[in-house]
């Protein structure tokens, strides 16, 4: 039977009091970041020293916002309508593209306050949305979204078709026909459901300096890609091909593109599934041979996602890496002239580059439809779209921006545009597509580990597509 010593009691009380004050106080004052000097911006990207000998700026210097990018909740005043906006970003710099634009919007339209929430990955945001919708609570008014989601959301009656609003909107006239088509989300019978402000084109990064050393040309076909990877493969320092084994990203970024390039459609117009056709199995085997037979991939291939792969490319370990126009600034900032890009290599039937549109989506549950539309429209106007174009590497959306010099002068944009005939989409409108996409990751890992063979792999996933 011990009595709490007086000192301890006082300490406990003080602690409790302090904590309660902190909790009710509405926020700890975060230490104000010291204003960064121009050569050292506040938000670094992973920059292994082996890449850049000198203290190189790790972020693009041109249009860098000088304050620390931080998704913040603006202070709302009484009488304002609050619009809740969710988005994701690959890094804080990209996050700032949204938050800065929205701040500008607030200045322009003081009657609307935008409360933002940064959810770090696309997949997480989708799940949060669906969960909130199912529970009928916590739904945002507007989110950043991708065209690939639209069919699913339309079916769930989550979103608002936008054609009536778009017709009265000036910028809509400016949209390229391709954008009008892609903004429906992949099912021609749907209405446009997204106020597009970006189009993302994938391509293949390569170490231009290594290629030059070895006197190689960037690969045009998948077979050439394999040759090049083997030629440049010098373990343990250098690996020919950055394999994306982690979390199923290979579907949309690597093997999925190759399959489409071979003519595999996944789901054909007559709704039959060809994912387990002989061509598909062959290509899948070819893909896994990169790891097991030719050994041109990095040791951590099985679990690497883009953060690790970026670190590999920037750190001088990888010769080839699939990604897209939307990361060109990040790579160039670190590697400068050493990195370049080439269109996705073509398969047996041609080239396929899955181009996704991204933009703002309005939700049916929102009670602030008009205000939400204003936010979405603002982000879609040429001024903001240009921001995304330059800073995030979006391709052309508007006719008025087609002649912009960046498309002509920048090698990354060139690589993206050169693949234009192959621009297209996956049949992600299929009701079982999300389920199949979720299974892709673990099944691929099993394939690489030889727990299943290529035929079983294809069959398992084809069955999910067929039966759900």
């Amino acid at each position, binding site marked *: 039977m011990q009595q709490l010593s007086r000192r301890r009691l006082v300490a406990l009380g003080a602690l409790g009091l302090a904590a309660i004050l902190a909790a009710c106080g509405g926020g700890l004052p975060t230490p104000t970041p010291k204003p960064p000097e121009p050569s050292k911006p506040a938000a670094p990207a992973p920059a292994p020293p082996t890449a850049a000998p000198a203290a190189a700026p790790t972020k693009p210097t041109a249009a860098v916002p000088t304050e620390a990018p931080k998704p913040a909740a603006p202070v709302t005043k009484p009488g304002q309508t609050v619009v809740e906006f969710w988005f994701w970003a690959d890094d804080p710099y990209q996050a700032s593209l949204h938050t800065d634009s929205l701040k500008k919007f607030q200045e322009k339209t003081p009657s609307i306050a935008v409360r933002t929430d940064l959810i770090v990955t696309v997949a997480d945001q989708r*799940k949060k949305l669906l969960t909130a919708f199912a529970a009928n609570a916590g739904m945002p008014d507007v989110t950043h979204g991708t065209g690939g989601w639209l069919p699913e959301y339309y079916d769930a009656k989550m979103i608002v078709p936008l054609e009536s609003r778009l017709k009265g909107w000036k910028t809509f006239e400016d949209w390229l026909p391709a954008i009008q088509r892609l903004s429906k989300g992949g099912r021609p019978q749907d209405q446009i459901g997204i106020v597009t402000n970006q189009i993302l084109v994938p391509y293949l990064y390569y170490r231009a300096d290594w290629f030059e050393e070895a006197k190689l040309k960037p690969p045009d076909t998948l077979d050439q890609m394999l040759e090049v990877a083997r030629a440049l493969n010098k373990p343990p320092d250098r690996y020919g091909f950055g394999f994306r084994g982690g979390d199923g990203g290979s579907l949309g970024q690597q093997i999925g593109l190759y399959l489409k390039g071979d003519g595999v459609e996944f789901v054909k117009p007559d709704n039959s599934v060809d994912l387990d056709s002989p061509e598909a199995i062959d290509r899948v085997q070819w893909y896994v041979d990169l790891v097991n037979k030719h050994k041109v991939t990095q040791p951590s291939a099985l*679990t690497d996602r883009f953060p690790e792969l970026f670190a590999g490319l920037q750190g001088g370990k990888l010769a080839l890496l699939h990604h897209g126009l939307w990361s060109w600034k990040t790579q160039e900032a670190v590697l400068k002239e050493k990195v370049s890009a080439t269109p996705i290599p073509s398969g047996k039937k041609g080239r396929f580059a899955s181009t996704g549109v991204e933009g703002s989506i309005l939700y049916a549950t929102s009670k602030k439809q008009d205000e939400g539309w204003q936010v979405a429209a603002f982000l879609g106007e040429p001024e903001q779209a240009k921001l995304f174009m330059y800073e995030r590497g979006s391709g052309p959306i508007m006719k008025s921006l087609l002649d912009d010099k960046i498309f002509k002068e920048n090698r990354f944009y060139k690589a993206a545009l050169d693949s234009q005939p192959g621009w297209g989409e996956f049949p992600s409108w299929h009701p079982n597509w*999300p389920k199949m996409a979720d299974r892709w990751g*673990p099944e691929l*890992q099993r394939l690489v580990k030889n727990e299943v063979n290529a035929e079983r792999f294809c069959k398992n996933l084809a069955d999910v597509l067929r039966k759900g």
Partner: protein
Amino acid sequence: MSTSARPAVAGIEVVRARRARIDLLPYILIAPAVVLVLIVTVYPALYAVQISTTNANMIRMATMRFVGAANYVNAFDDEIFVIALGQTVRWVIVNASGQMALALPVALLLNSAFRGRAAVRAGILVPWVVPGAVVAIIWRYMVDANYGVVNDILLRLGAIVEPIAWIGEPLPSFVVLSTATIWAGFPFFAITLLAALQAIPEDLYEAARIDGAGAWQRFRTVTLPLLLPTILLLLLLRMIWLSHSIDLIFLMTNGGPGYNNYTIAVYSFILTWSQLELGYPSAMVIMLSAVLLVASAFYIRSIEQSREWM
């Protein structure tokens, strides 16, 4: 008012045949807790049972239909479920025994007085208070294939020739997950065992010593029997907890590589989280809970029985 001969005894009112009175105070005292638990735990559990008989999916709630026991039966046709089943057993047994195997010697160590004991006792509590998310981060980074310190140490020691991709290989990833779980979990065991050890009266040891028992015999005849109920109960609690645990597995590997670290709980969670399924995952977890309930009943009965002949 009916009273007993000793009016000062609180709470127990003697009930006379003529006037039966129910003492309300205990019920009032426990009511808030019970009500809270009822609303927030029991009702959802019943709802979960109900939903396990449907094919409900979060985004297609309107079209859900009753499927009876289909979820339960079809589970055994599901390749992943069967894999997860075996791996659940593996996970529980390896981690429970690992934690106990480490905790018992540690408790014995701490039971003896030596300088610095207080520091050691404080030190081993650190893993226990670390949040699961932090445990996952620490171990994930330490075994990273490219930048991890574990590979570095092993390479320097000459134990391996090239870095192991711990997270990416079936068995190594299980080893990492188990190590992290044991690391985080054994302190609770150790401290509880220590408390139980310290409650064993010294005279029992004296008596045994006087009878000429050696150290090992004293352990076997005095320490172990008195400790056994605590050990067994703790093991039970821990095995139940392990059957449910998803934090570390989910945070470190998402259940991968492949399905190699799926347990029933992990599979159910991932299905709910990523596919937004409700019916099938609920069925899985209910099956798990049912098995645990039955196993616990047997287990507790055998503890009682073992107590009798001690």
